């Protein structure tokens, strides 16, 4: 196991267009090999065959040289959650009993899951609102893999996936948005309903269901068939463009009319983080997100956007334990998390 736990993905560099609002842009493709049954019907030797074939294809494309391929004990609980928290793998990959694999590029912008719901699912993450980079890199990887692998495809239904919700382009694009301005001005409901009406799916980034933490949202396309890849990107990026503009307006409104209140909220959050001796993931997430808001608004100048965004991930349970190199109980985690954050925020 070779991890670089304190060095976190280039997609969290805090750079890229509109990074004050957009944390990252993600593009994901699902693919299945034509010659092998889908995952629910695979026998173990077929799972191994696919694993082998994909690894071989990745090697042929040169991608393996740029990262690591994880298997087995790295991809089960609790260690596997490390990748989930970093948005490099899905929780399903970790909990499923399949023979499975995960490729992660050195800079963590490219990852590829083997034998999750589909034989292959790969994603590219880019920092900020940047479909050009994310889609460009994902399409390139798709091209290269397709030169090595025969995909299940039908002229009518497109790329065939285990679940019909992904069939067609099998393309899912998503944007991770930080929308405290819209939440504080109570405009968020309206905006999210509008996005849904335009065919998009909106979810909180952390927490199940509609519960959101830290005012972090994920917006993605609902439909994958009947539109070309470019059209899907265009629709999602068009709607997100509007959301970003609304968020900017909301932030301007807040800074003009409620500046002291916003500053109070931001500095109290920073104060709590710098003072806490015990802190849960949930509380830390909420406070860090508010601090991020303060940095984005220029209220806090001593911290960088990237530092705070990265902390949102580094403080999560599996990452914290890998960084500290220890297995910790819940209570121990809360204490060590508080210490870790304090050390990071000292200036």
């Amino acid at each position, binding site marked *: 196991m070779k991890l670089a736990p304190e060095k976190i993905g280039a997609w969290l560099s805090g750079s890229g267009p509109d990074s004050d609002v957009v944390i990252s842009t993600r593009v994901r493709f699902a693919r299945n090999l034509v010659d092998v049954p889908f995952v629910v*019907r695979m026998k173990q030797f077929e799972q191994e065959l696919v694993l082998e074939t994909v690894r071989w294809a990745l090697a042929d494309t040169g991608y393996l040289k740029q990262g690591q391929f994880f298997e087995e004990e790295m991809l089960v609980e609790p260690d596997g959650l490390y990748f989930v928290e970093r948005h490099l793998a899905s929780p399903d990959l970790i909990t499923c009993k399949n023979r499975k694999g995960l490729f992660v590029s050195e800079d963590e912008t490219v990852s590829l899951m083997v034998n999750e719901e589909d034989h292959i699912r790969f994603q590219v993450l880019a920092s900020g609102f940047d479909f050009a980079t994310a889609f460009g890199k994902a399409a390139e990887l798709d091209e290269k893999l*397709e030169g090595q692998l025969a995909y299940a495809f039908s002229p009518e*239904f*497109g790329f065939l996936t285990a679940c019909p919700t992904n069939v067609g*382009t099998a393309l899912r694009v998503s944007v991770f948005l930080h929308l405290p301005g819209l939440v504080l001005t109570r405009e968020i409901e309206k905006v999210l309903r509008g996005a849904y009406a335009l065919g998009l799916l909106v979810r909180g980034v952390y927490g199940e269901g509609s519960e959101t933490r830290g005012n972090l949202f994920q917006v993605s396309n609902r*439909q994958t068939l*009947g*539109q070309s890849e470019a059209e899907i990107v265009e629709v999602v990026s068009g709607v997100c463009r509007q959301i970003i503009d609304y968020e900017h307006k909301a932030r301007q409104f807040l800074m003009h009319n409620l500046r002291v209140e916003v500053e109070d909220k931001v500095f109290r959050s920073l104060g709590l983080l710098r003072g806490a001796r015990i802190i849960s993931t949930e509380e830390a997430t909420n406070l860090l997100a508010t601090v991020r808001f303060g940095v984005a608004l220029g209220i806090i100048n001593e911290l960088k956007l990237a530092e705070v965004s990265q902390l949102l991930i580094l403080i999560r349970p599996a990452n914290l334990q890998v960084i500290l190199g220890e297995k910790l109980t819940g209570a121990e985690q809360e204490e060590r998390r508080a210490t870790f954050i304090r050390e990071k925020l000292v200036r």
Partner: protein
Amino acid sequence: MKLCDICGKKEATLVVRQLDKDGKATDLNVCAECAKKRGLTGVEESPPESGAVITELKSKVDDSDAKVVCMRCGMSFAEFKRVGKLGCADCYQTFAEKLRPIIRRLHGSVQHIGKTANQGRKRAQERLEIQRLRAELEKAIKQEDYEKAAALRDRLKRREDETGS
């Protein structure tokens, strides 16, 4: 009463749809016993998989759902409704009629637009061809049919040069 197309004795209880290369379907009436023998598990109850279910699908399972079974992977449409996932690429053709309305509801369309797959298929086909030639060559050598082996070796060499592998 329809008799089983396999044993010709027992009553057929399910229809197995077999697809040829062009996707043309041939229906086979099969009895429960023959189905089990051939591993066509569609009629058996298997535990539902958690979280994977398209809830909308679960609402109504009609009689024909249990009877149409994918010849390649043995999944029945009823089972698909239960687990929310298909068993293989052929399932899409086997269940095309039943899937179309579902796919239309999900995506507002049933016609793929966008990138098509073929490039990889060609390359994969070439790889298979080369593997097949290698196997034949080995066999020819084992059988001491050196004339054939020489011819195969030349063909193999040509194919390998063409594909650069």
